[in-house]
């Protein structure tokens, strides 16, 4: 579409390429920025410009940081014998919110998916093996999503890591806390039934 401005058209096209944003939303965002006060648009522009420059991935765990290592990896109070493996940085935030986990993390940045051409070499897996090899780690908890890909990635991790004598566990899937059977969907109930445990 001709917006009468090359710059505006380019911005809309760029925004529309972002995940979850269609042409209509991109158009609305661009026009909003055009009308917004100078500060707002400029701030956003600067943030985007410095994003790639300042934000990086922790060299130990792959989580988000602005330093060499992330705050969790540098925290001396964390338990260095346990690693929780997650698919993405957003999962670290979710687990941290619970305030229940005191170990370290390892971010894979994806899951195995041959359909998308993603093999072990495309994920942050070699670094995980290195961490386990160093000997300090006693348990690896795999917290990938319960999908075909997440489960297979968990299997791959178990296969590569168990030879080092480290325990590999998987997050349990079952009924939500405080939720009665009545409100759980049949897939959850079926899974909880299959993974039932002894009282």
């Amino acid at each position, binding site marked *: 579409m001709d917006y009468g401005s090359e710059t505006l058209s380019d911005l809309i096209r760029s925004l529309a390429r972002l995940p979850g944003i269609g042409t209509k939303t991109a158009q609305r965002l661009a026009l909003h920025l055009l009308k917004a006060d100078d500060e707002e648009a400029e701030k956003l522009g600067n943030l985007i410009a410095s994003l790639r420059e300042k934000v990086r991935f922790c060299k130990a765990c792959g989580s988000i940081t602005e330093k060499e290592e992330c705050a969790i990896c540098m925290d001396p109070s964390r338990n260095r014998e346990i690693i929780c493996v997650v698919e993405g940085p957003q999962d670290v935030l979710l687990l941290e919110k619970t305030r229940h986990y005191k170990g370290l993390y390892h971010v894979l940045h994806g899951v195995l998916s041959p359909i998308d051409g993603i093999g072990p070499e495309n994920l942050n897996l070699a670094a995980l093996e290195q961490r386990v090899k160093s000997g300090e780690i006693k348990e690896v908890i795999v917290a990938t999503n319960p999908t075909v890909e997440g*489960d297979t990635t968990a299997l791959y991790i178990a296969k590569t890591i168990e030879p080092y004598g480290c325990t590999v566990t998987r997050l349990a899937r079952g009924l939500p806390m405080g939720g009665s059977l009545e409100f759980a969907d*049949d*897939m959850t109930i079926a899974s909880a039934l299959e993974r039932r445990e002894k009282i």
Partner: protein
Amino acid sequence: MLIETLSSTYFRNLASQTISFSPGVNLLVGENGQGKTNVLEAIYLFKFGRSFRTRRDSDMIRFGEDFCRVEIWSALERGDSEQFSLAVEASGAKQAKVSGKAISKFSELVGKYPCVLFGPQDLMLANGPPEERRRFIDMTGSMTDRSYLELLKGYRRALQQRNAALKLAAIPEERSLWDRELVEKGCALTERRTRVVEQIVRHVKRHSSTLSHLFEFSLDYKSSFMDESMAATDAREAFSMKLASMEEEEARRGVTLVGPHRDDVFLLEGGKDLKRFGSQGQKRLLAVLMKLAELSFLEAELEEPCVLLLDDVFSEFDATIGKRLMQLLNDGRQVFVTSPSQLEWKDARFMKKFRVEAGTLGA
């Protein structure tokens, strides 16, 4: 379930009118191309949220318009009345609502809209490739249980990933990694299918004795990995053993050659393979019996009469079988039947006749 009214806008050639139906037999008579089957298509839409005639939703929009909408008021036996609506835009965007509430996944419709369609294409059940019978079993199973549908999707996903790995993965360990999900989901799916087939067989035998005593039909689920000669102790082991035996060929061809996606349902008459030894008449009859069995299975599982859609099926049968079929089908449920000419339906319950001409339904 009962369909009380249907209204549509720009849906194929159907005129924008609200049509009230009889709770018994609704007979739609008209020449080809006048819109009889469009009515059935519109009613069927809410079973899975898609058409039985096209994979491209925008095909349902009348030529020259940029959207279409179908709305149905239905009532369940239990007494709740519900409004189903579906809108499709030219871009292919589709939005379904149940009583005003938007549906995010079409699997939410499962079990909410019990209906069975029977048309000339169903004769493929007996004549066509194994795929037709697998789809029949999967659709029947999915209608009563959402976890069946999820399992089916999971199996397909595992299969796609494994096939991609067979083509791409550099080392054998990376390929075999996908075996576990394939075997887990494949065994679960095989078990579910076997259970559905057992029920279908039970209903086929029951209806067979009413429709024609001449034949002894049966169905047998044939797994591609459960081989009697094998020494496996359970399904998982059998599947894994079969995969191991195919390893070389699979690696060479880059596709998974064993699993539920390769299974078939054998059709038998007097213990003999119907596909090889049966006549066209026998095959046609068994296809009808399988559809009747689907109807009975759903009604038993959902404890609700299904809406039955019959797309010009009576011309396929001789008069005697046609009459018996009508008696069977008229048993307390709502029926929509299309026919190119007037149809003699003796003792039809609350028969309402519609003349379909250029998309308009008249008395």
